[in-house]
C-alpha cells in the first residue's frame, strides 16, 4: 500500500525504518478478514494449532494419516486462522498534554507515535480507529481498513488540540464497552490521575479481552522539578494557578512522583498491560522500534 503522507508530524525516515517491523497483537484477535495475527478460531493457515479426535462429519482431507499409522486412531490436524486486528488509538487530548518544555509537546509526541502506529497497522492490513479523550474535545473514529479511513485518522490526529480536563477515564470505560470484539487498544496519555483509577480502566479493558498497550508520556522537567526560583504554575487543564518555591517543595514533589510511579508499577503488574513509560525527549522512532520488537511473537521451538 502506498500512501502519500503530507502530515508534518510523520517522519518519512522513521516510517521507512519501521516498515520492516510489524505490529503484533499479544493476544489472539478476531478479525473479519485474513491477516497477520493469530485468531482463537481454527483456520487454514500454515501455523499448526493442535490435534483433536476425529468425529463423524469432519473433513476427511484433514485426517492425519501419519498419526493413524502410528496409533491406529483418527486424528484431525488443526491449524490456526490468521486474521487482521482492530487498532484503537486512544489519545488523551486534555490540556496537560499540551505541556512542552523544550519545544515538543506531549500531544505532538502522541501524534507521532499514534500516527506512525496507525500507518504501520494500515500497511499490514489492519483496521485503525481513533478516540480523542478530552472533556472539551471528544472525537471517535471507529476502526476501518481502508486507505481513506487511515487518511481520516491521520488528519484528525493532526488537527486535535489540547484543552480542558482529561476525559480519558470515561473514554476508556466507554471504549471497553463499545468495541464488541477483541482489539488492540493503544492508550497515549500522561495519565495524570490516581493509579487506582487507572487500574479500574485497565481491568475493564482486559476483562473485555482487549490487548492493551499504554504509552505514558512525561516531560523530564516534570520529573526533576529543578527550578531555582519561585514559580507561578498555571494549570494547563484550567485549574487555579499555584505559587510555589521549588526549593522548598522540591523534595516533596519528587517524593510524590516516586509514590505515584510505584503505585502505577503495581497496577501494571496486576493488570498485565503493555506499559511504556516515555520521556518525550526520547527519539520516538527508537521508542516505537523497541515497542514493536517487544511485541514480536517468539518462534516456537
Amino acid at each position, binding site marked *: 500500500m502506498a500512501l502519500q503522507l503530507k502530515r508534518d508530524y510523520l517522519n518519512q525516515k522513521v516510517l521507512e525504518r519501521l516498515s520492516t517491523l510489524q505490529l503484533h497483537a499479544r493476544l489472539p484477535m478476531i478479525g473479519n478478514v485474513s491477516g497477520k495475527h493469530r485468531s482463537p478460531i481454527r483456520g487454514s493457515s500454515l501455523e499448526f494449532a493442535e490435534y483433536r479426535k476425529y468425529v463423524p462429519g469432519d473433513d476427511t482431507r484433514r485426517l492425519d494419516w501419519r498419526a493413524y499409522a502410528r496409533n491406529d486412531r483418527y486424528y484431525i490436524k488443526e491449524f490456526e486462522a490468521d486474521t487482521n486486528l482492530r487498532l484503537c488509538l486512544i489519545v488523551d487530548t486534555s490540556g496537560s498534554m*499540551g505541556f512542552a518544555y523544550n519545544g515538543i509537546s506531549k500531544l505532538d509526541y502522541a501524534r507521532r507515535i499514534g500516527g506512525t502506529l496507525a500507518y504501520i497497522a494500515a500497511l499490514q492490513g489492519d483496521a485503525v480507529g481513533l478516540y480523542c479523550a478530552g472533556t472539551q474535545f471528544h472525537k471517535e473514529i471507529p476502526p476501518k481498513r481502508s486507505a481513506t479511513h487511515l487518511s481520516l485518522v491521520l488528519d484528525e490526529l493532526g488537527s486535535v488540540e489540547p484543552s480542558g480536563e482529561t476525559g480519558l477515564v470515561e473514554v476508556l470505560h466507554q471504549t471497553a464497552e463499545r468495541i464488541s470484539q477483541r482489539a488492540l487498544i493503544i492508550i497515549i496519555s500522561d495519565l*495524570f490521575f490516581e493509579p487506582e483509577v487507572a487500574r479500574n480502566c485497565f481491568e475493564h479493558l482486559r476483562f473485555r479481552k482487549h490487548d492493551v498497550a499504554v504509552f505514558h508520556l512525561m516531560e523530564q522537567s516534570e520529573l*526533576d522539578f529543578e527550578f531555582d526560583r*519561585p514559580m*507561578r504554575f498555571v494549570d494547563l487543564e484550567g485549574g487555579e494557578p499555584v505559587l510555589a518555591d521549588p526549593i522548598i517543595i522540591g523534595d516533596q514533589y519528587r517524593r*510524590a512522583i516516586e509514590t505515584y510511579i510505584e503505585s502505577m508499577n503495581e497496577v501494571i503488574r496486576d493488570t498485565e498491560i503493555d506499559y511504556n513509560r516515555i520521556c518525550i525527549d526520547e527519539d520516538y522512532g527508537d521508542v516505537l522500534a*523497541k515497542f514493536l520488537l517487544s511485541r514480536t511473537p517468539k518462534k516456537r521451538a
Partner: protein
Amino acid sequence: MNFLQPLMLIALPLMLLPVIIHLINQQRHRTMPWAAMMFLMTAKRMSRGMARIRHILILLMRTLAIAALIFAISRPLSGGWLGSIGLAKPDVTMVLLDRSASMEAQDLQAGESKRSTGLKRLAQLLEQGDYGTHLILIDGATGQLHEVDSPKALLSLPMTEATATSSNIPGMYETALTYLKTNNSGRADVWLCSDLQESDWTVESGRWDALREEFALLDGVHHFLLAYATPPSDNLSVRVKNVLRWQRGNEAELILDVMVRAEGNTAAIRQVPIEFEVNNIRSVVEVELDVRGASLKGHRIPIDGELTSGWGSVGLPGDANPLDNRFYFVFSEPPVRKSVIVSDDASIGESFRRALDIPPDSRLQHQADVVSVNRVGEIDWENTGLLIWQAALPNGLAAEQIQNFVNSGRVVIFFPPSQQNAGDNMYDTRWSDWQNPSDGQLFNVSWWRSDADLLARAESGDSLPLNELRTYRYRSLESSGTTLARYGADIPLLTRINTDRGGAYFCSTLPTAQYSSLERDGVVFYVMLQRALAEGCRALAEASQRDAAPDALTDREQWKAVAPEGDTVSVSQRGMHAGVYRDETYWVAVNRSETEDTAKAAGVEAVDALFNGISYRRIDVEVGDTSSLANELWRIFLIAMLVALIVEAVLSLPSKRVESEPIGDFAAAD
C-alpha cells in the same frame, strides 16, 4: 554588653538581608504552564510540616551568620557575667577602692595583693570598655573623691597605694551618692573593689537603709562589687597591746605585751619566731602558736637607762599579708597623771580626789587637785589629763577652755551640781531637776554598754558590777549624746558626747552616800575614773600609738618619718601608712587598727541584701586570678557564624535520591 567598635553595630539591620532577599525572590516568580498539578498540590500539602520548618531554619541560620559576623567585627567584651548585663555606655564611672590593710592579703605565688589585682583588672576592663566622660576614684582610706584622667592612671596614683587604714564602705557610698546627686549624673557605673571585711562594711548599720533608698531614686546607676571574699589561707598578724618603759635606778627596760593572731588553716601547734627591734638592736623570741595564735605578756627588753623615749617594732616571718607582719611602737617616760576636780561641794570633791589619787600601778604617778569654781582660772590645762566638773555648767571663757581641753585629746566628766542652779548648756546638754524616788524605791541600772568605753568589761572578761549600784537621787539630763548606762527604759546614768577627739561625759548622779553607792561600792566609780584619766593622759605622753587614718598626724606640723627606713610615702599619705614619726620630743607610732587583724568577712548574702532593689552585680574573684574581667568575644561570634553557616549548608543539602530507580529513567520502567 560593651563593644570596642560600637559603630559597627549600625550594620546590624543587615542581618535581615536573607529575609529581604527571600521576599524579593518570592516576588520575582516566573509564570509557567504546568501539567503535573496533582504532584504539585501533593507536594504543597506535604511541605506544610518539616519542610517549612527546615526552610525557616535555613533563613534563621543565614540571619544568625550575618548577625554573628557584625557582632564579631564590633569586638564585644565580656567576662561571662558582663556579657549578660547589656549595659549602655555610662556617663560616669566611679571606682570605690577599699585600701584597708586586709586588702593587702596576697596570693603567694603571684605576689599580687587583692588591692593590686583588683585595681589592675578594673583598669584593664575600663581601658577596654567605655568609662564615660568622668572617671572618679573614691579611695577607702581618706574617703575623698578624685577625678582620674584614664584607667591606666589608677595604677600609679598615690591614692590607690596600700595603706594600713580601715575603710568606711558606707561612707564611700555616701560620697559617691553625694557626687551623683550634685552633678546630676546620668548613666553611672559604680565599681567597688573590696574584701567584704565585716568591720569595714558594718552591714548592720542603719546608714545602708538610707543609702539604698537614695540610690533607688537615681535612674541609670549600676553597682558592681568586685568581691575578694576568700580570706587568706594562712596568715599571722602581730600587735603590741601595751608598752611600758620601766626605770630602775640606772637601768631601764621595756615591758611589752604582744599578741599574735592566726587566721586560716594554720597548723595546730607550731613555733614562730618573733623579731623585736629596739634602738636598732634586734632580738628573736620563739613562741608557740595554737590555732588561734599566741600571746606574749610582759616581755622585757633591756634598754639604755638614758633612753627616755624611742621607738621599736615587732615582726613576723612573711606570710599571706605582709602588712600585718610588723607592728611599730613608741615609748617614753609615763607622764604624771594629773586630774583636776572642780566642785561646789568640798566633801564630794574629796571623794573624787581619793578615787583619782590612787594609781592602779605603783610605777605610775598620780596627782589630783580639787578646786572651786571661782578658781578655774588657776587650772594648769596643759598638764592635766582629766577634768571632773561637778558644778553648774560653765559658760564664757571657762566653757571655751574646756572645749579646747577636750579637742586636744583630754577627757572631761560633768557631774550634776548639788545646788539647784544648774547653769547653761554645754555640748547641747543641760541639767534638769533632781529626781527622788517615791516610797523608798531605788533607781537601778537596767543596761550599760559593756563592750567598750568607760564601763567596758575588765580584761579578765568580767563585767563591772553596775547591777549592784544603788542610786537614791539623780538629776535629769537633756542630751543628744550616746547613752552608756541607763535606769529603766530611757533615763541616762552616763552619756558620752560625740567629739572628734578626747572625751566628754555626763554622769547624772553623785558618788556620795546621799546620792548613790558609787563611792561606797567603789569598783565602778574607781574603774570609770581611772579609765577616763588614762584616756585623757594619753594625750599628755610624749609617745603615743595611733591607728592609721588620714588625720592621724594632723595635730602637729613637723612630723618626720623615722621608720621604716627609706620610706617614700608622700607627706599627704603619711598618716595612713604604718610607721614611726617624730616631732621634736613627741613620738607617734602609726599602725593598722585592731579590726584589720581579723579576716572575718561579711556574708555575701548579707552584702547582697544591702543592694536589694537597686541594680547590682557581685563578681566573686580570687586573689590569684589575674585574668581580665572582660575578654574580647569576637572569636565566639566568629565560631557561631561558622556553625550557623555549616548548619545552613547541611539544611540546604538536597535530599538523597534513590540511585537504583531514578525517576527520570522512564524508558527502563517496565
